[in-house]
């Protein structure tokens, strides 16, 4: 699905990491963990072509990201659900319009039945927020809305950056359940988090692999965290 081959990245100063080779396999469930500032967000951006590696190659769905045309990158992103750490919305549109925006963009609004949308809104606990504007949402509500927006297209891959950063434990488990459900449908999921209890909770539900990011690079962590 996503392959990193001897990837290095630097924002201009020192390298955040170098010589990272990771293969995210189809249908697997990954956690990406590491201390703050280690480069989790950077890693995710490399995975969806938000950043291009300064060395090495990233392949998504078998295609080298750096050699894709702009429109091809757009098509690639339609198959990847992304939850950014600093979630952004179209602030002038209601929450529900923002959530169905990926469908609007790819002209597939008709694919979604109203009950499905209601289910999804209910699942992320935003039913009574649907007609409001994004700026009226709390931090946790924004993350839930972003997760709903990321999964509405039923993407092949979900990349979520701290999706449970601002929500309570109950809601965290609910969001996790949504993601494990998707994984069970064969989707690849990658969650960046430093919430170890979330990882432990997940391990009870799915076979999750943990990628640990550190100064030395990105490695699969052992069984015990």
């Amino acid at each position, binding site marked *: 699905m996503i392959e990193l081959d001897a990837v290095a990245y630097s924002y201009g100063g020192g390298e955040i990491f170098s010589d990272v080779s990771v293969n995210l396999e189809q249908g697997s469930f990954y956690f990406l963990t590491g201390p703050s500032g280690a480069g989790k967000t950077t890693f995710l951006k490399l995975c969806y072509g938000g950043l291009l590696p300064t060395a090495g190659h990233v392949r998504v769905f078998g295609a080298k990201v750096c050699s894709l045309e702009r429109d091809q990158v757009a098509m690639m992103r339609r198959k990847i659900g992304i939850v950014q750490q600093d979630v952004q919305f179209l602030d002038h549109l209601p929450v529900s319009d923002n959530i169905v925006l990926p469908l*609007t963009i790819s002209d597939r609004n008709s694919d979604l039945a109203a009950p499905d949308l209601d289910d999804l809104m209910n699942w992320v606990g935003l039913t009574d927020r649907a007609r409001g504007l994004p700026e009226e949402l709390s931090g946790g509500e924004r993350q839930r809305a972003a997760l709903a927006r990321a999964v509405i297209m039923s993407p092949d891959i979900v990349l979520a950056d701290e999706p449970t950063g601002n929500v309570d434990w109950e809601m965290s488990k609910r969001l996790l359940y949504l993601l494990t459900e998707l994984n069970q449908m064969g989707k690849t999921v990658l969650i960046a988090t430093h919430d170890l209890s979330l990882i432990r909770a997940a391990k009870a539900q799915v076979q999750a692999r943990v990628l640990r990011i550190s100064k030395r690079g990105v490695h699969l962590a052992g069984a015990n965290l």
Partner: protein
Amino acid sequence: MTPVLSLLRNLIFGDIRADSVVPPSGFTNQLTLFISGAMAFLAVFGLALSLASGRLATKWNNELARTATIRIIAPPDQLAGKTEATLKVLQTTSGVAEARALTGVEQQALLAPWLGHDLRLDLLPLPQLVEIISEKVGFDATGLRLRLLAEVPGAILDNHDRLRLPLLDAVFRMQLLGWGVLVLIFAVVAAMVTLGTNVSLAANAQVVNVLRLLGATDSYIKQAFVRRLTIKTFVGSTLGILLGLLTIWAMPSVDKSHGFLSGIELQGEGWIISLLLPFVFGVVAFVATVNAANQVLRKIS
């Protein structure tokens, strides 16, 4: 289909809902509306100036080129004979449709503005005037001059070129000025729309980011911006042109003989071209926005 064509198709038939992804930015839109209106208003006058100059040039060219005068200067007792001889020469000159010696009364009428009505012309040694109206093709002025020199000394041909050519030159410059004004106006509109596109895209950087993240292609992102500015330019210029036409229509119509400014009015083709102008403005705006949006979107990655 080429990208431009498909964008144009989207512009006209495209999903209007897609426009809602871009927040209505009132300021740029209103400015576009206002400037394109003002520019279109001016364009009507540029157009009227060009067309009127063109008309005037044709008119003067036709009228003045087809008339000429021969002045016969001679002692009073030879005048009648020389006039006779001149008319004879003219009868055998090809290209002359009509030649006629002016009568005393007519000559007096010509001189009246300068000399008054009660002057007795027969007491003055005035030249006899012969009026020539040429055929469409005209006659050979140099040849006629030489013949007159040989056969009727004292008869001088004046074919009005000295008057006509500088006038034509002036009118031609007027016409050029009019077209120049039009070109400038379109350039200003293109520049303004380019600026407007840049401002809109910069003001909506977050929108562009979100759309990109969710897999929007450049042409999707462009669409809303292009449509808005193009439609605003079209509407603005339509209003401006209607106002311009109304102004021209309401201008006091000066007596035709009073010359130049009386020509600033629109006739048949002028009205049609004016009504086409909004479409030209629309096309200019469309090309300018697409171009500007392409450049900006290529820069933000």
